[in-house]
């Protein structure tokens, strides 16, 4: 069955005369998020007949990711799609790749330079603002909240939280941040423990903005276990498989995400377009207004400012109890 809906994709765009090898490199191998992306990458290979596969380091580490990319260059792949663990760290190696004629497409890396295209599911600040709007609604626009990030070094997660806090300061004056953002090492149990401790230190906390996906499980468990439904609210990144149970039990009300499978598919699709254009000696014509035919990527927008390689898709998916049945991953 199809994971990524390609009913609206131009069949022309999926056809290619040559069989290209396109490797997708992710931050870390084997977390639910990138397992989902692998499905999209695989499907793209099946849909187009190209050689596509996904790799990632066994531990989330920039140095290990760079080494993987080096290896791909040595293998002589045609294109690399990359979700960098650290944008800065991969820049030099991506430059090498491009110097050797490899097409490079990235994702979750809006400040990157050494790529042909970067495709973002959305604007990070807006994503965070949306989380805040939701949390504020749950909290009645008043009270204290905390925010979590997987790691202080994670750029996108910190930008989401920046966006959320900015939104609160601008629109919800009766709300306030109880304590600095918590660092939870992308581990649901750490989320749980730290949130619990924050609650002990600040018993009046009524809301949680979750940056990393595991927070949805950690916060969900905390609320379920302590009977805090209706007293502690949550809005944050999460997948239905991770937090759906808590949604349907009413422990938490809102999670937000974008579909990594589609993102993976989109990166590969853009890479293919560019490869074909190069082979034909013409411009791929990817820019503002491009329609990939994939949900959320039908009207790509160019980033403001100088970086003309960064394309934004149209957003995220918000999931509540009501629509969670639509997403089975």
């Amino acid at each position, binding site marked *: 069955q199809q994971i990524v809906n390609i009913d609206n994709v131009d069949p022309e765009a999926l056809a290619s005369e040559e069989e290209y090898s396109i490797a997708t490199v992710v931050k870390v*191998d084997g977390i639910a998020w990138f397992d989902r992306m692998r499905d999209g990458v695989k499907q793209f290979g099946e849909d187009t007949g190209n050689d596509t596969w996904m790799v990632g380091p066994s531990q989330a580490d920039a140095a290990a990711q*760079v080494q993987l990319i080096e290896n791909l260059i040595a293998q002589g792949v045609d294109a690399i799609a990359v979700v960098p663990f*650290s944008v800065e*760290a991969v820049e030099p190696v991506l430059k090498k790749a491009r110097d050797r004629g490899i097409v490079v497409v990235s994702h979750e890396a809006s400040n990157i330079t050494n790529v042909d295209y970067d495709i973002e599911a959305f604007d990070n600040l807006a994503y965070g603002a949306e989380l805040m709007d939701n949390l504020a609604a749950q909290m009645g626009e008043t009270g204290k909240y905390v925010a979590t990030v997987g790691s*202080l070094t994670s750029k996108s997660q910190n930008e989401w939280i920046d966006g959320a806090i900015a939104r609160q300061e601008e629109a919800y004056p009766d709300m306030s941040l109880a304590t600095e953002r918590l660092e939870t090492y992308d581990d649901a149990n750490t989320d749980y423990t730290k949130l619990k401790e924050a609650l002990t230190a600040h018993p009046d906390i009524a809301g949680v903005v979750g940056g990393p996906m595991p927070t949805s499980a950690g916060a969900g468990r905390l609320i379920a276990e302590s009977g805090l439904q209706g007293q502690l609210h949550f809005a944050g990144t999460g997948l239905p498989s991770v937090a759906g149970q808590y949604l349907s039990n009413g422990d938490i009300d809102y999670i937000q995400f974008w579909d990594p499978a589609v993102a993976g598919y989109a990166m590969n699709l853009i890479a293919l377009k560019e490869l074909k254009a190069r082979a034909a000696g013409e411009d791929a014509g990817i820019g503002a207004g491009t329609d990939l035919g994939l949900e959320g990527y039908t009207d790509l927008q160019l980033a403001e400012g100088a970086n003309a390689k960064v394309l934004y898709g149209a957003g995220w998916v918000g999931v509540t109890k009501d629509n969670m049945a639509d997403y089975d991953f």
Partner: protein
Amino acid sequence: MTSQTKSEPRGSILSGMLSDETARTNLLLGAICIVVLVAMTAMRPNMFLSSYNFESMAFFMPELGILSIAMMIAMLTGGIDLSIVGVANLAGITAGTLFGMMAGENGSSVLGLGPVALGVCAALVVGLLAGLLNGFLISVLKITPILATLGTGQVFIGLCLVLTGGPAIVGFPAGWNAIGNGKIAGLPVPLLLFVVICVGLSLLLARTSFGLRLKMIGTNPKAAVYAGVRRGQMIVWSYMLTGGLAAMAGILLSARTNAAKSDYGSSYLLQAVLIAVLGGTNPAGGRGNVIGVALALISLTLLSSGFQMMRLSNHLIDFVWGGFLILVIALNSWRRHRRA
């Protein structure tokens, strides 16, 4: 001894440097290197033998190699240094912060060679100071190395976070970048640095009083004190050397990626322990040599590169590393038994 002299191109010097047991382990590792090379070539001839493959290895291998050697030095006295990755990142970040301060508004990429040299010095000083702290905790306060360096490792990574606030420091000067990505006479600078460090350290360990004293301390710490070796002082020096090497790795890491961050290279820590041990270092102290570590590094790098080309999951590559370690242990033990 004779077979080892034959197999080593630099003959007499090296054979003098290596004790019997060491030579045998190195021979085994060398053989493994060749087997891996041949096997991988047979499976992926075009990819594996590509010049780019070797060139890129020459760029990224030295960091891990230097960290492994640093680990080996700590193990020589029967210690261990779990803070090396923290030190490496702290060194890179310190240099980056310094560049940021020196360059001010203009962006540090314009800085010339002078500031880069200053940055290198600053990074090395950070490494030496970190080592001094470790050495102090271990030799003066008598804290078990594993605990002392676990604690300081946290502190160093913590300081990285404090300095950067989390995000990476970017935009190192061009000269800095050249340390990690440049070439001299067609050879990658990191490789050259690695070779220099290897040669320097094997001489230091085998041909100087410093090296001899370290090994003596590792062999029998009590007897070393009775023989007039300033044990505390030597341990401090050895951890400073370890710290300095870690900082060197940090310079390479940040220069190659043109960025510095608190969590770079976190996967290197256990790998460094593994490579050091595989290279014939006795974690209980007294035995260890640079050539063995270099050979272990090369064979493991070849192995993972080859498996990556076969699109084996990286988790299975971890499995292979572990299996490899046990295999070498088994082979060594079998050989010992047969000889006895």
